[in-house]
């Protein structure tokens, strides 16, 4: 199946070199290789650079509120279990604003796949500290360095429910295979995709 049928004809608005291009491609290819029909897929997008993928993938989609993609996805899945339900969001939305929803989805082991573009920053809002920003790293909102410990999201989710699939993966290697595996996983799956924001990421290295 041709993955291009998942294109909407819209040109992505990400910065040149943004790791979200890789995620976008891998997701479309995964859907195609899994032979999923466009109309049988619902993707709930969070708000943020990663969530902006909403305009660029042709399936049923919901561009939700910041932090709220997971409960929307859960509502879809509870009511229509036959659909393939995927969440695309950033670390700010999924690990911060909506963390309680992530924990609950893991507790429920509900059969949805959550793809977190974890760039350790709030990028769309031009680079503030996120829940996964390393302690001490400077950002626009924490110029003296954040004084918070980063959230070990994957470890936490696994602790909450050992039955779920949760792993941190690189944005380059085996992304497609990992996404396919996560979608096929008969329960809750979290892929924490370790990204670097090419535009604001350098802030963190200071």
């Amino acid at each position, binding site marked *: 199946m041709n993955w291009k049928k998942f294109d*909407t004809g*819209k040109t992505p608005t990400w910065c040149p070199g943004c790791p979200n291009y890789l995620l976008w491609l891998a997701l479309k290819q995964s859907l195609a290789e899994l032979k999923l*029909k*466009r*109309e*049988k897929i*619902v993707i*709930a997008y969070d*708000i943020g650079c990663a969530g*902006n993928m*909403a*305009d660029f993938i*042709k*399936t*049923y*989609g*919901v*561009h*939700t*509120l910041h932090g*709220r993609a997971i*409960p*929307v*996805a*859960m*509502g*879809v*899945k*509870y*009511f*229509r279990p*036959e*659909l393939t339900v995927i969440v695309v969001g950033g670390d700010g939305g999924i690990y911060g604003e909506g963390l*309680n*929803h992530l*924990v*609950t989805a893991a507790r429920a082991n509900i059969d949805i796949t959550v793809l977190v573009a974890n760039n350790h920053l709030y990028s769309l809002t031009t680079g503030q500290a996120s829940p996964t920003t390393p302690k001490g790293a400077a950002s626009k909102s924490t110029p003296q360095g954040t004084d918070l410990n980063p959230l070990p999201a994957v470890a936490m989710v696994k602790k909450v429910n050992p039955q779920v699939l949760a792993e941190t993966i690189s944005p380059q290697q085996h992304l497609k295979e990992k996404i396919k595996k996560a979608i096929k996983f008969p329960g809750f799956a979290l892929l924490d995709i370790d990204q670097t924001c090419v535009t604001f990421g350098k802030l963190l290295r200071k």
Partner: protein
Amino acid sequence: MAQPTTVKIVGPAGTGIKSIGRLLSRILAKHRFFLHDYSEYPSLVRGGHNTYQVSFSPQENFAVFRTVDFLFSLQPGHWQEHQKEISPQGLIFSEETPPAGKLKKNFLFFPLSELARDLPPVVANTVSLGAIGFLLNLKKEICQNTLATTFPQAKKENLRAFQKGWEFAQQHWSEKRLPPFSQGKGEKEIVDGNEAFGWGFLKGKGDFYAAYPMTPSTGTLHFLAEKQKEAKIIVRHPEDEIAVANMAAGAAFAGARAAVGTSGGGLALMNETISFCGIAEIGVVFYLVQRVGPATGMPTWTAQGDLLFAVFSGHGEFPKVVIAPGDQKESFQFSWQALNLAAELQTPIIVVSDKFLAESSANFSLEKQQKEVKIKKGKIVINPREDFRRYSWQNKDGCSPRTLPGTKNGEFLANSYEHDQSGFSTENAFVAAKMAQKRMKKLKKALQITPKPQLFGRPKNLIVSWGSTKGSILAAIKNSSKWGFLQIKTLWPLHPEIGKILSQAQKIVLVENNQLGQLETLLKTHFSFSVKKRLLKFTGRPFFPEEIKNELEKI
């Protein structure tokens, strides 16, 4: 016509006053009396002071009254704070020596603990029920049958306790017994407002209900959770109200007839999602059962303080509908109608109730009510063309046909960002304005399909109110040739008929369970009129007919 008879049972929390009260209401309904009940309880599980009262009559009765004819104090002393409610011939039953002073003649010694001595403690209250049954001249068999079916586990003990109370009353108070009542025509079953909403949801083919426990909305969550299997619906109690609202939005997007239940604090957390449903055009019903705010306020007490909050909930400008049932029957009707409105208008629908209505019972016939139910699904496309545009503005009513996931060629994006006709994000000035206008057209359509204001009696001297005050107002003006009542059933959008009726009135009296007179503020955004008098009560207690009547007499 005589005022209905009122019985009140009071005592400490945790002594089962509510369950015995509910049972009495059920028994009265089985006699076909017209009844309304009301109970007060603190936000505690044990201790404090609980009350239950019921007013009933074989003639049509709209409300629960303040003036009590029979007051049962299940423990000594608890009657004291209700002294002023006793009617001149009213009776107080308690296990203590009668007080000195003018209440002495109203006082009857009721040796409850002695009568209950060889009974299991759980059925002790049933002794009072026996005495009440005798004094009210109820049919013993109806009492016993209802008792047996309500408490099938402790049937024997309950029947024994009932008999003890009945016999004691027969031996000691037969001169106090009421003469037999004539047969009434009230419906034989009862519901409270929360259950009525739950029934309306089920009969209106609701299929997804989510709620986070919050008094006084929790009754509907319990009711539907209990019925979910048999009714094949999904009921969820998610992690917080934000999840509640978003989950319902997801389910509604996927095709569910979805509702959520909460009180003011929960609706505050749902506000962003209300706005989201507005822009993404997702029809969800928000059942808001008001209690006293602000913040945690007084959780188990009644108020109408969230009217403006509901009407103006959600940031940004988008169409929404706010309707408020005035009694238990309307709680049923507005529930299924709200599901229809959500499906047809594809926008948030808020149903505003309150503690007084939601947790008080009245006669109800499901059989009769469900005959009126009509299901409207709105515009759904089953075979969309390849160029399907979910948010097409080629329509007069602002409601674009939608597709449900699973429908080929119907793929679209439901977007919290402003979007074009296909759902893609846009910041184009023309498209943004055009979309905002398209959505707002729904308000016009809403005026055609939402409940109309209802005028009771003549409009010359007019009481204007909304929601749960309806019963007490109708009772207060019963047989009055002077006063009429305008019930505003749809609080948003405002029907133009309201303005016409107001303009005919000479004297307008506003009745609201809030401090600011929020209905008046709201109506004045559309209509010009002046108010003769405002009856505003914000003590956490509902209006009783007597209070309204007294105030009207002063005008």
